């Protein structure tokens, strides 16, 4: 596969967004469990 600077830049952004989304998943799980135990 060919590497160019735009693809590299967009690739880094994609990866950071993916890692951030996985991190945000933790917040969602925390919120859901908090709601469940609050009932």
């Amino acid at each position, binding site marked *: *596969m*060919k*590497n*160019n600077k735009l*693809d*590299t830049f*967009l*690739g*880094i952004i*994609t*990866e*950071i967004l*993916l*890692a*951030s989304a*996985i*991190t945000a*998943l*933790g*917040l969602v*799980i*925390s*919120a859901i*469990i*908090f709601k*469940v*135990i609050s009932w």
Partner: protein
Amino acid sequence: MVRPFSLDDLKIVIFYTGKVIITVGLIMLIPLFVGLAFAEWPAAVDFLLSVALTLSVGYIFLIVGKTDKIPKLFHSMLIASISWLVAMVLSGVPYYLSGHMASFLDACFDTMSGYTTTGLCMIRDLDHISIALNTWRHLITYTGGQGIIVLALTFLIIPTSGAYKMMVGEGKDEHLQPNVRNTAIQIWKISLIYLIIGTLVLSIAGYLSGIKPVMAFMNGLWIFMSAWSTGGFAPYSQNILYYHSLAFYVITLIISILGSFNFALHNAIWSGNRKEAWKNIEVRSFVTTLSITSIIAIAGLAYKKVYTNILSFFTIVFYQVVSAHTTTGLSNIYSVTFVKEWGDVGMTAIILAMAIGGSAASTAGGFKGIRMGIVFKGLIHEVKKVLYPEQAVVSTKIHHIKDMVLDDSMVKNAALIMVFYVFTYMLGAVVDTAYGHPFIQSLFESVSLASNSGLSCGITNYTNPALMKIVGIFQMWAGRLEFMAVFVLFGSIIMLIFGKRNIAK
């Protein structure tokens, strides 16, 4: 077919191990310069002596083993396993000279912990070591995460098919580029670009939380190296808790997750194949098992009322689960908290997360996501074969960079490596239990060592008996090299001892 283990074989192994040693000696120049820059003269002298010793040993290996022969698979496996042991010993010299270690064995434990990106520490007074030694600790982790041989391949070792096998022996079984040197260069390019971004972001976070600019930069650099390499070392004994910063926690979570991705995945996404980010079997496997272990840990601790609000669930419990699952080992709670507050449910969730680990050909340890995915899909495949009509052709695909049809050999290989991991996890647990520690705590510590995670419930300590430390070193080393190179080394030693000078080709 078998062939004799000749003098030429020995020369090839010594020669290429020498090249790896030279690489280690050259990296050691960095903490030497750091020591000089910060006017830490005793530390600079320690590193000067260590560099001289390491380069001398490396050159002796090159002279003794001088050969123009190309290493084959058998040599490459031996080079990988022996290089890591020699690097551990030589890299431990500046630790020992610093006077902060109780013994040279402790220094070796720490360097193996660093190179394998485990992160467990044997230093007696971590808060008082020099900036140069702290730089060396984190540099070892950063180098080990990418691979010592991968580094040597970028500028010292001739790129041949045998050289690629050395990378396989080091647990990096991926062709990112057609050429092995370009593959090694691409791995370092990805790591260095993230090093610049991550250090910058962490330095700003450190500066804004009140650390002086130079030390904010050094802390940013060290913590990046630790998080990206899924290492777990930190410059202070309180680990990441020292910073008391939500920004530090979130940034290190993101960096740890990025570091646990397969280098082939990074390469594919950086090459324009951005859909790979959600199609890849390792990403899907990671998200699934991370969610399951997080739910177990958070729900278990919420039920016990250890933590009662969303922020604690996220910043404490989820942080430990991600740290365990990416096998990073950074921690914002004290070791004793696992035993005194988390209890069996919380510790079991962490043990599961550590055992599974991150992606193959990444800086992470554990079973690896691709093996979990393959074994799970293999199980589904077998169930389908039973449920479908006998004449139906059942085919299962997995997606890792490209679509692949799942076959029995893939499932068998993945399951076999997972079995070796389980044996290694149990080995340490049995030894620790024999020394009087409760089983769940022994298993926690053992899985942490063999999966190269680095979270601790308090067992690992410089006061431990030598046998526990030696078993720990073995677990970290075997887990990081994913067993094959270790078995080849043991097989060769047994053959030589028992006089059977025939080694399987």
